[in-house]
């Protein structure tokens, strides 16, 4: 698994940012396998409600999670901006369905502040921290926490 810790070094970190339920979130770019827009998703009846379904990604079965639902926000609104962010976790590819993606943001580790207990309605435990940019706040997701069953 790629590193998810945000160290104290002043090294530059890159975050891929995206919108989900109106909030801007980021994931360390090193955690991301790819971002795609395959939506030929097979429903999985009886799975948890945040499971969007499963997808064939070049021969691998990838579970797609509706990140909005998982974070307790509005479910992702299906439109042309939707993307799957495929992350690698425990030797498994998992897709996060998001409303749309935004820029890659460069930041220094020390600029990331601890997450408050609640960011825009999302529990603080899902975040590693928040990054304040000139325009807005980016919640940096803790992938391990988000992908917990």
């Amino acid at each position, binding site marked *: 698994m790629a590193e998810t810790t945000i160290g104290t070094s002043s090294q530059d970190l890159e975050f891929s940012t995206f919108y989900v339920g109106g909030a801007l979130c980021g994931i360390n770019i090193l955690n991301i396998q790819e971002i795609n827009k395959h939506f030929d998703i*097979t*429903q999985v009846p009886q*799975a*948890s409600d945040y499971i969007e379904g*499963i997808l064939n990604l070049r021969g691998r079965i990838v*579970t797609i999670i509706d990140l909005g*639902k998982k974070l307790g926000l509005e479910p992702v609104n*299906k439109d042309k901006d939707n993307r799957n962010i495929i992350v690698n976790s425990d030797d498994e590819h998992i897709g996060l369905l998001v409303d749309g993606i935004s820029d890659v943001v460069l930041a220094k580790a020390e600029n990331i502040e601890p997450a408050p207990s609640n960011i825009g309605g999302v529990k603080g435990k899902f975040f590693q921290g928040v990054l304040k940019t000139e325009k807005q706040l980016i919640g940096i997701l803790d992938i391990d926490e988000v992908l917990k069953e």
Partner: protein
Amino acid sequence: MFEDDETLQMYIEESLDHLGDIESDLLTIEEAGANIDLDLVNNVFRAAHSIKGGAGFMGLTTIKDLSHHLENVLGLIRNKELVPDSNRVSVLLKGFDELENLLNNIDTSNDVDVSDHIKDLESITKSSLPEDKQEMVSEIVDIVLQDGRVFPQVSLFEIEQYKAEGKNLFLVEYDLIHDIQRKDKNPIEVLNSLQKTGTIIDSRIDFDSVGTLSESAGPNRIPFQVLFASIIEYDMTETLFDIKKQYIHSISDDMIVSTSVTDISVEPAFMPSKEDQKAASVVVEVPEPERVLTPPAKPVIQETQKVKQSPSKEEKEVTISAKPQTSLRVNVGLLDTLMNLAGELVLSRNQLLQGVNSSNVKATELSSQRIDMITSELQEAIMRTRMQPIANILNKFTRVVRDLSQQLGKSIDLVIEGKDVELDKTILEAINDPLTHLVRNSVDHGIETPMEREQMGKSGTGKIILRAFHDAGQVNLVISDDGKGLDPDRIAVSAVEKGLISEQQVDEMSEKQKIELILLPGFSMAKEVTDVSGRGVGMDVVTTNIESLGGIIELDSTPGKGTDIQIKLPLTLAIIPSQITSVGNERYAVPQVNLNELLRIPAAQVKEKIEKVGDAAVVRLRGELLPLLNLSEMLDIDTTYLDPQNEDELPDRRQNLADRRSRQNIITEDGVIIESPDQEKEHPKSDDPKREENDRRYHARSAMNIAVVSAGAFKYGLVVDQLYDSEEIVVKPVGRHLKKCTAYAGATIMGDGKVALILDISNLAQMAELSSVSEAGQIAKAAEEEAMAGKDKAALLTFKNSETEHFAAPLNIVERIERIQTSTIEQIGEQKVVQYRGGALPLYELSQVADFKALPEREQQEVIVFKIKNRELGLMVTPPVDALEVALDVDEGTLKQSAISGSMIINEHTTLLVDIFEMVKILNPGWFKEDAKVAAEMAESGEKILLFAEDSAFFRNQVKTFMEEDGFKVIEAEDGLIAWELLKERVDDIDIVVTDLEMPNMDGFELTKRIKGDPKYSHLEVIALTSLASEAHIEKGRKVGIDEYEIKLDREKLMKMIRQKLNLTK
């Protein structure tokens, strides 16, 4: 201990390889006895020896000691100083087992106490030696070099043995740094090459002379000492060992110094200090390039040498360590094939790309064909790499059976057949335990002791056959023994005692079902728990294991004769043939192993075939009630939940779905996931007409597709929307978030790239709590049967004349049902005939004999062929023609007319019972002329009087009529008791008794018993009339003395029998 992982790993692998064959070799040696096969003994000897050689160098003292002692015994056997009898071989076998165990747990091997093994081995060694030499066996000596260094702890016995063979002893000191590492060698290889010219007695790293890191010069030499025995003279050694002469010491007797330590097994002789270990590992820790090449090169040698080798090696790992194997030996030839195929695939891909880029359709087509072909070949080749001969696990049973039968004092021959049948490695690993259990069971419970066997007239030696063979794309494994078999009744009693089933259930069980009770969890027959079996955790675990592999287990046993256990396994788990089905717009795969049959109920019949028992739907399939599970119903709830688009509309939808669910359980179109607006529009449309129906069963507007599946004992119908082809699918694991969705066994990727879920049939049944459904079904069935029990049952054939006229005729007088083309019917005068089996079959229809409608005109005509008076005739009818078993509740009055004996309600239709006999009589009076004559004659020659007991007025009248028509006089009785009274009064008049079996007050059995039990009446023949003659009934009847059985509505046969019994000829 030595800490270079790679060298150590190599040593372990090699050693395990050496051990691979040993078991079977030893068993062969044992069989041969004094008649020693030197090659085999040498094989085993060398194995022990090589293991010992490496162990010394690795610092694996326990392994070294043990293998050393094994080697001693083997050496004696080799020199024919010892006869390998069964006890000695047992000790050796145990020793090698322990050795393997040690090798598999190398980290803790030095802490294992093997003194028992060593003691046993030593006592064998000693026993073969003359008194004066016995002491030597456990004597340990040190070898002291001229410079004062010591090579400690060598067995004097061994040294003496080599000296006796005329070999020279050397102590060769390699330097791990200069002689080995710098020359790109590795210690194991050095040892191996030395083995070619002589024998390594011992090897070690002399850490004492390494010095410490703090010394100024640093460690520039790590002596690796090998004590070596060879016929080679000292002069030649320099060239041979490729090291300077100063490091080769010839060992003379005076260098061998006795030590006081004698008990080597308890005290590990040599443990390097931590520091030393580090030093050693630093130096040797260089990966050798050759290493990479060695493993693939091996199998080839092995395959040519001996096929058994790699097999048994694997089996060991399976039995001894629970860890699944992580590496696999693959034939190099197969790897080459794979490589070639990969090459071809790349070429074809290039062609395909070119074709696509240049829009060359022809080229694209060609290359896609090639790719198709290559893929299949590739798939097959890759599968082959996973396939392992079943001999891997079967072979070890020789040992298991040998050991167990010795332990239990039984004599058993094990025959193994079909060793080269191949199975996927995963399956092979997984069936090992269940199979071991079954074989142990056979030995322990199946085969009797020689004494018992001889008493039963069997040969004293039992026989267990392990047979593997391919059948219908599956691997079959049969374990049969000729032992005492399973006693179904004892099993049933045991099961009842343990509270696993009720006595009532037992009554309904067949022998086979009773036997299969032993597969229930918690079942045990053993009176006492033995070492071998009887803990009550057994067969159910076996069943679970086998079922989890997609296999099936079946039992068959004859008490006194033996037991057959048959296991059917899929060839592989990775690719499985499956039936593709769909519900909504998703496809689901049903593994073929679970699939029994496919059932399609046409829309018109859905209403009559599907019944409701409580809340559950059942379908009647060949007389059995099959619970139905509606996949769409199980899945749609969650799907709707899942669909985020519909989140807002959820309550609305749910109501809608609930609505639909109660009326119609099959959703033909996408009724589950509503994504597009036009589909939504469709729904009201398709729903409206359905809502009008006030039918709480399945709606009858579409045909119903059912996959009849079985999961273990459960059999149920899975209702799906569509049934597609059967396809081979590749099972892919699903992610961890879906692990708790037990309804799926995995997922697969379909031809169009979409993912389809694979259904887990047994979990689905559990989820649906089908057990209760099936119980409900059974209760309903039982209740129904009970209701029927009081009445007479009869097998009827139902058919129609015109669409609305329902008829039935007794099934037992029906010969066949044929479908003919209407055009082939010929009209001859008034008579319709059809050419049939070389003759003309007269055809009739009901409208000819009674006031019914004429048959509707159709292209095809269903004809029921009856046989009466040895002549066949056909009755033309309108389908559906169906066979039923019903309780006869006949109304003889209301709808009585010619050729109709009465009416009853069958499946909610008033159904007329056709009296075929009467019909034929009307149509063909000529056929009966002879009968009339016989009847007349009989009446003349003095009447024969029949006593006829029958409670059903319908049957009483029917049977009485045709008896009288044949010239008999009939005394009627309404039940057994009346018959008995009548008989007492008129015993002298009555010639024969005909009785129904099931009657109130006194049944036919009791009546017969009384007749046969009283000398006054016992001369009377008793013919029993039944509607359904079951084996159990017949048996019961025979016991009380019933002479013959006849079926009620089979007039001809009954009359023939009566005549025969009364010695009347026609």
